């Protein structure tokens, strides 16, 4: 045990002094999400405000038929262009010299009077601009439509309530934490599992292939320590690096939610309460308990491949693409709707962690399934440790 502690302490010191490993373990997870989120939100907010202030350029064809609708457009917001050839509309919309074209059907006023259903065509190019022009135009048209409807009902002596035979009253028992947890919680495993792998990757490569390349592994193998003592010492440091990196990424994300308040005053209270819920001791402990076996699995995988590799470079080229392999079950668990945590999915590595952490964040995790996830992860972790230990004891691999 003493030898394991000596090796662990030394490997930890060596890793902490490795700037590259520290950068991937601490700096990127801590700063990436705050910077990414704050940057995205600031830019989005700026563009949104700018779009909101912009005049909506609307081509109004056959406006003479609907003078009362024309009056409904606020001229401060809408710049109405009257004399446009109908054949030029498409090219103008594509060239962004027009936001919307409004074409009123011939005989519109007479059709309205005869209680018919004439058409108003809205032509636009839907892409960015936050759909502000189309939304604003629809608002005007809907208001106009409501006025006509009220007039018709009055004329026919029909009460408005006739149109709504009954009222639907929705009572949703899902708390805001549950609803948000399932949505945001789907995204969180993505972050911490990927950062867990990333955080373990650099120390893993350095303490395996790096040592092999520098010749330090050879001298360590001559020191009076059993192979398993050396392996456990290294394993511990790589595991801790992965877990620390994952926790830091999670904290970085949560704190960036709080940081957003500086830019956005009206962050929904539900999001802020969810952020503080995740920070609660129980949630954190549950998330870390899910993270530990998956980190052990990652560590075994990384260390096995690292020891197998002849050089740091070879290890990087072998381990790097594993990110994509991990991404696949994560993507299924986090993004595909309808995939839920059940007895079968609780047995699938990585996917089970993604699904169960989603449930933990939403506060809806079943104790039985949590136990199954832990048990299956533990079994996989033990198998991966045994494989790693077998590889580390193989002299033809160590001295490959």
């Amino acid at each position: 045990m003493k030898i394991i502690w000596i090796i662990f302490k030394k490997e930890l010191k060596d890793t902490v002094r490795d700037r590259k490993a520290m950068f991937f373990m601490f700096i990127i997870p801590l700063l990436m999400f705050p910077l990414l989120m704050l940057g995205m939100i600031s830019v989005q907010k700026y563009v949104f405000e700018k779009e909101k202030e912009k005049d909506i350029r609307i081509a109004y064809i056959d406006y003479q038929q609907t003078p009362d609708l024309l009056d409904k457009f606020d001229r401060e917001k809408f710049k109405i262009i009257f004399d446009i050839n109908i054949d030029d509309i498409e090219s103008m919309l594509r060239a962004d010299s027009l936001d919307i074209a409004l074409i009123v059907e011939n005989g519109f006023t007479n059709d309205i009077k005869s209680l018919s259903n004439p058409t108003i065509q809205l032509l636009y190019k839907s892409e960015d601009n936050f759909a502000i022009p189309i939304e604003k135009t629809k608002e005007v048209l809907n208001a106009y439509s409501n006025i006509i409807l009220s007039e018709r009902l009055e004329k026919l002596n029909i009460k408005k309530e006739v149109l709504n035979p009954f009222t639907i009253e929705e009572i949703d028992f899902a708390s805001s934490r549950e609803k948000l947890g399932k949505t945001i919680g789907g995204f969180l495993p993505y972050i911490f599992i990927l950062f867990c792998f990333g955080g373990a990757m650099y120390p893993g490569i350095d303490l395996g292939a790096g040592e092999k390349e520098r010749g330090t592994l050879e001298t360590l193998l001559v020191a009076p320590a059993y192979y398993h003592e050396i392996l456990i010492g290294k394993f511990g440091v790589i595991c801790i690096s992965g877990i620390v990196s994952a926790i830091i990424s999670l904290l970085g994300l949560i704190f960036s939610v709080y940081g957003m308040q500086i830019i956005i005053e009206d962050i929904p209270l539900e999001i802020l309460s969810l952020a503080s819920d995740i920070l609660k001791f129980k949630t954190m402990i549950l998330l870390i308990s899910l993270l530990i076996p998956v980190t052990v699995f990652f560590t075994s995988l990384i260390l096995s491949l690292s020891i197998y590799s002849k050089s740091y470079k070879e290890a990087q080229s072998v381990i790097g693409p594993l990110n994509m392999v991990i991404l696949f079950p994560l993507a299924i668990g986090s993004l595909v709707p309808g995939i839920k945590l059940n007895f079968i999915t609780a047995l699938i590595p990585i996917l089970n962690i993604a699904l169960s952490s989603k449930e933990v964040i939403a506060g809806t995790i079943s104790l039985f399934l949590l136990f199954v996830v832990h048990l299956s992860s533990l079994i996989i972790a033990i198998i991966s440790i045994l494989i790693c230990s077998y590889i580390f004891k193989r002299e033809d691999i160590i001295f490959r």
Partner: protein
Amino acid sequence: MITVQDLTKIFYSTNKKSIKDYFTSNSVEVKAVDNISFECNPGRIFGLIGPNGAGKTTTLRMIATMLKPSFGKITIGNLDVVSNPIEVKRKIGFLSCNTGLYDRLTVEEMVKYYADLNRMNNEKYLERKEELFSKLDMNSMANRRISKLSTGMKQKVSIARTIIHDPDVIVFDEPTSGLDVMTSQSIIKLIRECKELGKTVIFSSHRFGEIKLLCDDLAIIHNGALYFNGSYKKFEEEMQADTLEDEFVRLISENK
């Protein structure tokens, strides 16, 4: 004392040239060391000489417990290297031309790490450290990171790491290969001092000057087999060529 008896090491090489080879187990048996025996005695320097790929490093790695013999036996003192690896490792110091140092540790941390691994108590470590650091003129660099040191300085740290626990047996695997004259000299000095202190010293080398200068006993190894095993004096007496280099080439060529 090191006793090597009928030592053989077989590697299984899988020469994978095509994808098909990855699905077949056509491994080739390679005898890196083939039934060799020799003895290294305390207070004497034993030289293991041979061309590249002769089996020198494999033999030394088996002595240092890094590799397990396929057949045969190695004992250090009365300890078998296979059944008592940890006890054997405590008696051994291993130095190669590759310094094998951790760049991000300081000199003192590096040496202390190996002292701790050898379970030296703090009092004994401090005493030994002072002795070695003074002898190797390392006091001024004790707190410097290894990455900041020159090759010569690194070699000194490597020497200190190798002998901090005062081992009875010291294994030098081509210790001067690729080093400048000054650094090589410090290694040669160390090998001599080890002999004077009554240590068992085994070293492999390509440099015939060093062999002549240092060796009491000699073994010539080629393709894993020994072609000569005896005292350096005996080797000189039996020489048929004019120089050591020529005799070495003659022996190797005759036995190809």
